[in-house]
């Protein structure tokens, strides 16, 4: 054996090795940089839009800058009746000024408008719809997951698994259309329930598959120990296997929640949106993703700003839930 040729091979191989490693670093950076850009941008721009009103107020039409301006001389707000109402016609984007109403020919300066109000209605709506969806999805998803994991060799099982895979891969606008056709058209009204049920279609497969995966991790010996005590299969599953896997199931539920909270398309066609705070699931509701969409479409830069704020809140919600997932899974691993 010639050790010299081996050495050459080695040099070549280590070069390739280093090149490949370099490539993985580049690829990782390419993947991560946009992520940080997105998060950073939302944090900075969205963070700037936040204030107390943002969290405590609902939608209010924007007003022209200065309508609430303080008179430096008196320290009192300048009476808005003197300088016009300040309110803006949302349809035209024009200030509703009694003196010029209907006769203004000049282009309005859209940037001279400040947004008022907040997104409390969106926060409430999103929480209500997503929690309702979770409450519907959990029993269905967990039972489906148990069925997938504990009774694996049946044709029905293959069928359920296929449905889960198709559903979790379905474009969410399709889910929206289905929700619209099944729920909105038949009940003749947009509503929070319709949105929640539409989200259920997306959440059930997530919950079912995570439940299945986590149940498969429960050692068979645990099942056998329960059965050796004379427990029937279903009893062993419910009282021993599922509790053992509980934290994993919670993780699945949280992931499903995060997914549901961020969905736009299914809600767009089912809850319609609502400018007012509503606590009824049977009325049209607002939701953060929809508000983001609405505000970013707005002609007023100030309202675009609100879109970033909404995006910020939404992202914090999803990040927070994911953090919770991290913590629970860390606990699972510790045992």
């Amino acid at each position: 054996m010639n050790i010299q040729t081996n050495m050459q091979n080695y040099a070549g191989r280590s070069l390739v090795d280093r090149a490949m490693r370099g490539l993985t670093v580049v690829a990782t950076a390419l993947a991560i940089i946009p992520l940080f850009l997105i998060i950073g941008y939302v944090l900075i721009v969205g963070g700037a839009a936040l204030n107390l009103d943002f969290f405590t107020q609902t939608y209010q039409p924007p007003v022209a800058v200065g309508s609430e301006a303080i008179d430096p001389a008196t320290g009192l707000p300048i009476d808005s009746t003197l300088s016009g109402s300040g309110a803006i016609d949302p349809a035209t984007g024009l200030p509703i000024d009694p003196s010029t109403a209907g006769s203004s020919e000049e282009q309005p300066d859209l940037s001279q408008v400040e947004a008022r109000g907040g997104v409390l209605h969106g926060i409430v709506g999103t929480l209500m719809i997503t929690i309702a969806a979770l409450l519907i999805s959990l029993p269905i998803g967990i039972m489906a997951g148990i069925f997938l994991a504990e009774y694996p060799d049946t044709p029905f099982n293959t069928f359920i698994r296929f449905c889960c895979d198709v559903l979790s891969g379905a474009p969410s606008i399709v889910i929206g259309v289905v929700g619209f056709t099944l729920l909105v058209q038949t009940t003749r009204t947009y509503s929070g329930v319709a949105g929640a049920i539409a989200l259920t279609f997306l959440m059930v497969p997530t919950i079912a598959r995570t439940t299945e995966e986590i149940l498969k991790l429960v050692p068979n010996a645990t099942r056998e120990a329960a059965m050796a005590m004379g427990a029937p299969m279903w009893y062993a599953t419910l009282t021993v296997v599922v509790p053992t896997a509980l934290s994993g199931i919670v993780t699945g539920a949280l992931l499903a929640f995060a997914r549901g909270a961020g969905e736009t398309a299914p809600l767009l066609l089912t809850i319609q949106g609502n400018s007012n705070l509503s606590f009824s699931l049977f009325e049209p509701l607002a939701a953060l993703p929809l508000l983001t969409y609405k505000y970013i479409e707005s002609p007023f830069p100030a309202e675009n700003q609100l879109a970033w704020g909404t995006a910020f809140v939404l992202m914090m919600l999803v990040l927070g839930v994911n953090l919770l997932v991290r913590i629970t899974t860390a606990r699972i691993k510790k045992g």
Partner: protein
Amino acid sequence: MAATAHPAHSMTVRGLKPFYAKRQAVQAVDLDVRAHEILALIGPSGCGKSTVLRCLNRMHETIPYAHAEGSVKLDDLDIYQAGIDATLVRRKIGMVFQMPIALRTRSIYENIAVGLRLGGMNDRLELDRRVEQALRSANLWDEVKDKLQLSGLALSGGQQQRLSIARTIAIEPAVILFDEPCSALDPISTLKIEELLLQLRERYTLVIVTHNMQQAARISDRTAVFMVERGQEQPVGLLVEEGSTEQIFSKPRDRRTEEYISGKVG
């Protein structure tokens, strides 16, 4: 319940053929388990000891594609006869596994109470009494009496194995089956379990699978030797010899037993 006269339960196995799907894993087994004895099943790995053991309380069929043919009698009752509920069989014929299983979401107390609750017992005082009794019988009470509410995972492997035994005892079975109960344990824990098995023999009929011949020699009254025949396309296990442990280890009748005992095979 009189502490003196424990009911005597025996088992009779005739023509037992365990299958995995279409494959018969062990040739037809005839075996007797006498009341208040420790019967050891020994043999090289893969010869079907666990499979046969699991047929004795119908655990075998919990594997979806597995089934068994033949007859296994507990006293006069054939547990494979039509209309017999396998879950009830398992309450009469308990089983302890190789890996100590502390049900992880449950406290030490609940690890034992779960089986009692399953039998419909709900009275708190009665549960307390039976849990204590089971833990005492498993020589574990003194070590855990102050931490009954802690997770079973807080115990050492040997303690967890005794917890598993206590869980089985609590249901008051007639026969207890052990599948290599010590092979995951250190020597000291192993000795404690062996001591416990000798005590339990007074009250139950015991069958123990072990790959440890010294263990079989130390604690069992009778021994059944299994071998695996590799002639066929699929290896098939078979029972080659059954006899008193003394006879098996001193003058085995079968050449294969002799070779196995003297360490030439296995």
